[in-house]
């Protein structure tokens, strides 16, 4: 059978130490003059709220009636002021068409750098047959087809300069 934790010495020591410390603190004396200070703070403390006496009560009106009228006047004044402010401020017309913001999302649908070519302009032409290697030194130069079409003396390859049917 397992030994219960409260039977061993460690338990007795640990719990005993804690209770001894707590008892020591619980037994500390209160500071001198605590009661007097508390009494003084109670004397200074405000008593329950009281209704202020109505100054015109005795002269010309019943107190309750006068208070009610005053309260109603205050309510009317506050409500009137609020309405005046509300009626002056015109709310701006909400737009009928809601323009959705264009969000440029990386990785979304995009034009993939495609360029639109107007229909009035001839399409691009191939200067070399498909699959043929383009010599490095010709890169960046004007296509030979245009030159050949412009001057017959150039004597270029007629097959290469022939415009490709689209």
């Amino acid at each position: 059978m397992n030994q219960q934790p409260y039977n061993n010495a460690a338990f007795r020591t640990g719990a005993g130490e804690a209770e001894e410390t707590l008892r020591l603190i619980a037994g500390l004396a209160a500071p001198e003059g605590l009661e007097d200070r508390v009494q003084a703070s109670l004397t200074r403390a405000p008593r329950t709220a009281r209704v202020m006496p109505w100054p015109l009560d005795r002269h010309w009106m019943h107190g309750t009636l006068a208070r009610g009228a005053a309260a109603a006047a205050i309510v009317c004044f506050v409500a009137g002021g609020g309405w005046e402010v509300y009626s002056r401020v015109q709310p701006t017309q909400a737009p009928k068409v809601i323009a959705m913001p264009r969000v440029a999302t990386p990785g979304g649908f995009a034009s993939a750098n495609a360029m639109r070519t107007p229909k009035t302009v001839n399409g691009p032409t191939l200067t070399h047959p498909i699959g043929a290697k383009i010599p490095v030194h010709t890169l960046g130069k004007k296509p030979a087809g245009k030159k050949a079409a412009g001057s017959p003396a150039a004597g270029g390859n007629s097959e290469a300069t022939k415009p490709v049917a689209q």
Partner: protein
Amino acid sequence: MEIAPGAVQDETRQHVEEEALAALVSQYASTLYRVAFSVLRNPSDAEDAVQETFLRVLRHRNGLGEIRDHRVWLIRIVWNIVLDRKRRAKTRPETDDVDELARVLPAHGLTAEQRAAAAQHHAHVLRCVDELPVKEREVLVLSAFEELTSVEIASVLGITESSVRSRLFRARNLMAELLEHSRSLR
């Protein structure tokens, strides 16, 4: 000049209430202070808590006659106040606890070194107490007050007496484990 009988009754009633309140202060202020100090561990905070307790009583002084046990009722009020304050207060550095304990704990025939060592020991134990779960800690702290029975502790905490006993048992077990663990780390 005529004095209305209602005004006389009001004054008499107020006078009686003030006397009852003063009697409560002189009788229980010290107990409430000790309860507050055991949680807050700061003399000025504890005194503030006692003052706040009696100010609350002042606000509800009309119902003083309906209270059966004023002592438990007052302890319950101060307990709620100190727990609320403790919750809101920032964590103080541990050195504050040690210094405060060294100052307030009794030192009968102890040298300065022994006193400092005792304060450190108590501060260490209190740190372990602070590590206990809230429910167990509350019962353990209140059980240190010899004038409180387990029924009264149950009444202060708003639980049953059997819960008090089981929580106290768990608290003692946990304290033993915590202190043993801290010793093994040293």
